[in-house]
């Protein structure tokens, strides 16, 4: 089981800020992304945006990073702080 969180306009677009995902681990971030879309096909257009950023256990990662069970995986648009 992994914990998924969404932020900013992505959270608004999905109308969802977090969910639990049951997926065989370890798996890639891109597998997580695909599994979410499979369960929620209406989210495909938002979750396949290539500009989306991802963090695993609060560290920024690329889409080929491996995710272990119990991890927190965050998806969000490019950051705009400062």
């Amino acid at each position, binding site marked *: 089981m992994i914990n998924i969180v969404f932020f900013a306009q992505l959270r608004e677009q999905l109308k969802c800020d977090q969910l639990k995902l049951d997926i065989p681990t370890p798996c890639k971030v891109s597998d997580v992304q695909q599994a979410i879309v499979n369960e929620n096909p209406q989210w495909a257009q938002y979750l396949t945006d290539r500009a989306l950023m991802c963090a695993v256990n609060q560290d920024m990662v690329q889409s080929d990073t491996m995710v272990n069970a119990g991890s927190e995986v965050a998806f969000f648009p490019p*950051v705009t702080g400062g």
Partner: protein
Amino acid sequence: MPDTAHQEYDLLSVQNEDFDVAYEYAQLRENNSQDGAIVFFSGLVRDFNQGNDVTGLFLEHYPAMTEKALEKIIVQAKERWPINRVRLIHRVGQLYLSDQIVFVGVSSSHREAAFEACHFIMDYLKKQAPFWKKETTKKGDWWVESLEKDQKALDKWQKDE
């Protein structure tokens, strides 16, 4: 060479409250006859951004990650330049026109190091810390778009290495 006498003056804070630049500056100077250079950056809510008349903005962040991401940036800056004290404050929540958003203050014995480290921290913060701005304008609210130039600002530091 990090100096433990400086560490108690370091600060990293993500907060709703406003900050006081005079106090932050005093903390960079206090008991610090070693450092001849202090550089700081202060970011404010401005009235015109990406073509809109801005009246305020809401700053969302990823609480579990924010401080960790900022800490990493500060560690990188300290590894790269001989700086002593770093104070970084980033506000979150609802802000209004001309409000202070972010403060980065750096002290060093060396002018060049203080300038570069402060600039580096801001450039990295812009691209690697999980903050998102939603602007309130007279025509509605919208999320600020990430800028190409902020990526270029980051690339500059990689070319330098």
